[in-house]
Each structure stands twice: as C-alpha cells, then as structure tokens.
C-alpha cells in the first residue's frame, strides 16, 4: 500500500541549531516529492519539491531536502533554525496533485 511516514510527531530544537525532519514513503514507482509548511491556523505553503535530477533540492526559507531512492526517504534539513520556523511540516508524495499522499505532519518547536 502507498503511504508516507513522518516518524516524529513533535521535534524541539534550540534556535540556531540544525534541523532534520524525516519522511519515508512507500510507493510503486518514484513519485514526485514535496515538503509543505503550515503556520498555526493557516493554509500550507510549498517549501520545495523533487521531480527528477539532482537529488539535493533547495527550497525557500533556507530549507533543503535530499531524495534517497535506496532508503525511500526525502528528509528536510536546515542548518540553523530561526524562531519563525516554528510550524508544522508536511511531506507529500504522488504522481499528480489529486493523487498526493500526505504524511501526518511534524510539529517543530523552537526553544529560545
């Protein structure tokens, strides 16, 4: 069955520390891969996406993600987090926008 797993429901990091949010997927073929961010009470915003080519993808707000086919993973990273990065992050995979499979999200908490 197709699925997306974000193993961490919550992650707490100190401001200025590095961040890695995990995303693993199960899918028949290599899907398109996305990371979206949601601030409290708001809609979602696309951070970055992977379709093909270079497996290290750069996104907005200083985020990057690496696609590892052998591990079926698409982890999101940021070298130094800011308090404004506190939000919920969603990984999604699929072959079209109406076939996206969404992870349950990881809530990022920033310690001052």
């Amino acid at each position: 069955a197709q699925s997306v797993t974000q193993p961490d429901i919550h992650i707490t990091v100190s401001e200025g520390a590095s961040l890695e949010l995990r995303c693993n997927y199960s899918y028949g073929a290599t899907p398109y891969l996305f990371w979206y961010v949601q601030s409290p009470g708001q809609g979602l915003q696309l951070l970055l996406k992977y379709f093909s080519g270079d497996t290290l993808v750069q996104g907005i707000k200083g985020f990057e993600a690496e696609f590892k086919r052998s591990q079926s993973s698409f982890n999101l990273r940021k070298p130094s987090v800011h308090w404004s990065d506190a939000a919920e992050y969603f990984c999604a995979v699929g072959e079209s926008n109406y076939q996206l499979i969404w992870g349950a999200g990881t809530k990022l908490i920033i310690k001052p």
Partner: protein
Amino acid sequence: SQTIHQWPATLVQPVGSPLSLECTVEGTSNPNLYWYRQAAGRGLQLLFYSVGIGQISSEVPQNLSASRPQDRQFILSSKKLLLSDSGFYLCAWSADSLNSPLHFGNGTRLTVT
C-alpha cells in the same frame, strides 16, 4: 499575482444544519481547484477536486458535496451536517494537476455542535 480567498475563517453550526464554504481564486484562469479536510495529527485528506467549471471529482464518499459554478469559484456544501464533519477545511488551487504546486487558502475551522 494570484490570491486565494476562503471564508468564513471559523464557523459553528448545529447538527442537521446546512453548510456552504466558499473559495475564490484571483489572478489566474482555469485553475485546478481542491477541497481538503485536515484532522488533528493526521495528514490532509482530499475531498474533491475540479479541473473545470461543472467538473467535480469526489475522492471520499461522505456527507459533503462540491460545486464549481464559475471558473474561479469552488463551493463546499452539505445539506445536513453531522458531528463528524467538524474539522479544518482547506481550499487550494494549482495551475495544473501535475507539476505545479498547490496554493492553499487560510482554511475554515468548522465546529458542528
């Protein structure tokens, strides 16, 4: 630039009452439109999507329906709300169904009492 408007932001409705949530997009034509529901601690669930006026695809059998009376207007409705309809509803648009990203509205928090 393109913008998406979704209203109301919050809504409290009694069980058995009707529902109408509206979403409009500006600054683009012939967008793909989507209604999602988001439950706490869970990912997004696609409810409906539309690739054109009057064309609605339903992903999940439920108490809700959707309509697209105009190119950039997408409406989520129910004739009689259930308690289980409570949740956070998000409208989104994309330029196409394949490569372009989803752009979300700010959502409607629906509480059915």
